């Protein structure tokens, strides 16, 4: 198995972001609506959503869904 540099970087980033306690994608979904509104409104991330923020950095799928939801919510606010 040959890893490209981009994959090595991705692995090192993921390792750096790893915490003892993390939420999974289902937990993220339960926070995503609130988190998307915070992001769309440009507010500081409240303490209760920090774990969502950490998961977003680790999970490309949840990041993609969140970006789409923020786009919709931001559009709705304009």
């Amino acid at each position: 198995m040959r890893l490209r540099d981009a994959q090595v970087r991705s692995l090192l980033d993921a390792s750096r972001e790893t915490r003892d306690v993390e939420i999974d994608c289902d937990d993220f979904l339960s926070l995503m609506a609130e988190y998307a509104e915070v992001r769309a409104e440009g507010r500081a991330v409240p303490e209760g959503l920090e774990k969502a923020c950490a998961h977003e950095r680790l999970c490309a799928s949840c990041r993609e869904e969140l970006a789409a939801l923020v786009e919709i919510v931001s559009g709705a606010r304009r």
Partner: protein
Amino acid sequence: MNAARLRLRELGADTVVQMTRATRENAEWVRAIADDGAGGDAARRDLREVLVAGLMRVLTARGADGDLCQDFAQEALLRVRERLYGFRGESRFTTWALSIAMRIAFDELRHKRFRDVSFDAMLDGARSPLAFEPRVEATQERSAMRERVLRALADVIDGKLTEKQRAVLVAELEGMPHVVIAERLGMKQNALSKLSHDARKRVKVHLEALGICEADVLWVFE
């Protein structure tokens, strides 16, 4: 194309604007969606329009057409009703419903995107010893640090991860989403998340034990 679908095709992003500013408050949405009568039908119709317009806004560029967005919205509507009393009211109701629609739609598109990707070939790759692409660094110091980091990664991945952890790690690095990996491995997604977390944790602990810090990594790989 029926009239309802034609109308939805004509609805643009403005619909999302209008619908997410709909006059219903959260509690009213919950009450109405749960209502099996005519009031409930109207609310479900309104919510469905919000969902379709939102889905079309973000999925058209990803190749999803109006019919597919309709299907996603329908499935999301069913799931919203199932989870209705799990809504905590910490966002607008429509944002919450849209978050459920996003998960359904993107997961389905991920399954389609990876339908023809061989997981077995990926697993075969995961079984062979780790190698890295060669690169000439500007200085000997940098080259030595790169070697040190890569050797550490090879040691932990080849020697300290289970076969399943390696497989998951490789699939993740190849860009395969968890929903697809879980399906191919016949696992629940939360079990897969735990497996992935344990693998990353082992890598992190190993690098830390060798004194490889973030600054070293950034110096060589950023």
